[in-house]
């Protein structure tokens, strides 16, 4: 199976790889997937006082498409409010990266990751 150009670009130059302080009140962490399934994503977001995502980091264990999906997502969520970020659909990732049907689950996982990170942040606030 050949990979699309955009997948390769994100895979070879992943954006925003790293770790944020998971204990900080303005950081939300979403960890989704399972090693047994061959992919685990950890997505972290940091919001400013206005509720805008000012920083996003990820680490992903998985195939090239999973890495590319999470890398792309960190780019997209920066500068968005939590509401805006929660509106991102996996299909947008599929379209942008031109993922084949067998790799759609990677984009679903990325959508789950950002939702989990937002939930984590909201739980901390409440």
């Amino acid at each position, binding site marked *: 199976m050949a*990979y699309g150009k955009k997948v390769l670009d994100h*895979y070879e130059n*992943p954006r925003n*790889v790293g*770790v944020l302080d998971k204990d900080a009140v303005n950081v939300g962490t979403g*960890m*989704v*997937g*399972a*090693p*047994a*399934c*061959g*992919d*685990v*994503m*950890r997505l972290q977001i940091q919001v400013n006082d206005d509720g805008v995502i000012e920083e996003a980091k990820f*680490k*992903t*264990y*998985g*195939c*090239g498409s*999973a*890495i590319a999906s999470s890398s792309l997502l960190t780019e997209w969520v920066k500068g968005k409010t939590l509401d805006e970020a929660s509106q991102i659909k996996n299909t947008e990732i599929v379209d942008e990266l031109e993922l084949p049907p*067998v790799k759609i*689950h990677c984009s*679903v*996982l990325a959508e*789950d990751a950002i939702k989990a990170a937002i939930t984590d942040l909201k739980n901390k606030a409440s």
Partner: protein
Amino acid sequence: MLTPTYMDYSSTTPVDPRVAKKMAKYLTMEGDFGNAASRSHYYGWQAEKAVDEARSQVADLVGADPREIVWTSGATESNNLAIKGIANFYHKRGKHIITLKTEHKAVLDTCRQLEREGFEVTYLDPMANGLLDIEEFKSTIREDTILASFMHVNNEIGVIQDLQTIGEICRENKVFFHVDAAQSVGKIEIDLASLPVDLMSFSAHKIYGPKGMGALYVSRKPRVRLEAQMHGGGHERGMRSGTLATHQIVGMGEAFAIAKAEMKEESERTLRLRQRLYDGFSDMEEVVVNGDLDQRISGNLNISFNYVEGESLMMAISGVAVSSGSACTSASLEPSYVLRALGLSDELAHSSIRFSVGRYTTEKDVDDAIALVREKVEKLRELSPLWDMYKDGIDLNSVQWAAH
């Protein structure tokens, strides 16, 4: 585009130029293009002569009589013919078959089909090193067991089964013994004159012959009978009809003859390369060799780089053509059933890479592969949340994962 270095010889091999050259002589008007079944003229006789010579070459490599060799389209067909052929011919004697969970799909799916037709199949678990548990096999044999089918060398992990011991048990219990030898023939010694084996499948393309060509050894002493699966003109003593593909057959014969002449030297050379490859990885953290390292074919190294997913590693080392047990390389999203049957965790199975070296692999190829893999594994571990957790001393089994 620079073509990647080929390190997937267990998957297939290029045709040896000596083989290709010979094959080309059996295609055109100027060559011997005749039908080996044409008994009445020169063209047929020439083709028949070539087919007979090739049959002897194949038989010679494995210590068989040429009359025990049946041409097929490949090891898949040979496995089908052997297993279905025995089951259909001897079903009145019993309907129980024993095989191993790590067999090739050509054996497993054939057994599944027989189950649908009323046969009963026992799929044994291998031991953790990939080898058959002899005692367990013995205790599985029943009064109505007619056939045992075990591969000589496993395609994924390269482990070698003890055919002598297994075959003796089969003979004692009057169970036919079929062996899929696609991955072993031409790489390790096989002497069917002394081995207690009734049927053995061969493929040409795993040892520098053409694809689409194989053979089945059918023992004459003791006599083994098969029900044909392909009906027609009664070729191959009625066991496999269809006009013989002279050029393919000649190619297989030549490949087997070359293997006979060069096998010893070649296996020593590939063993040195495999060892070199393994040495290049052995000091890395969290690296596991899958399958027994000693009872193993010389060219195979199946190795897991823990916390790195196999497909992304293959993508990262795209300069080297290898294969992976990762789910992502298959449509099913299941990791390798062979590695799972060894009791490997899913994540180790997902992290596995099979390197297989062969006739045209050089030391430089191996050194380049080592350097590339080391660099990329490090990079991908930097990207891996599991590696972070491992480094933090977190037991991954203690984590509640959300399976999806």
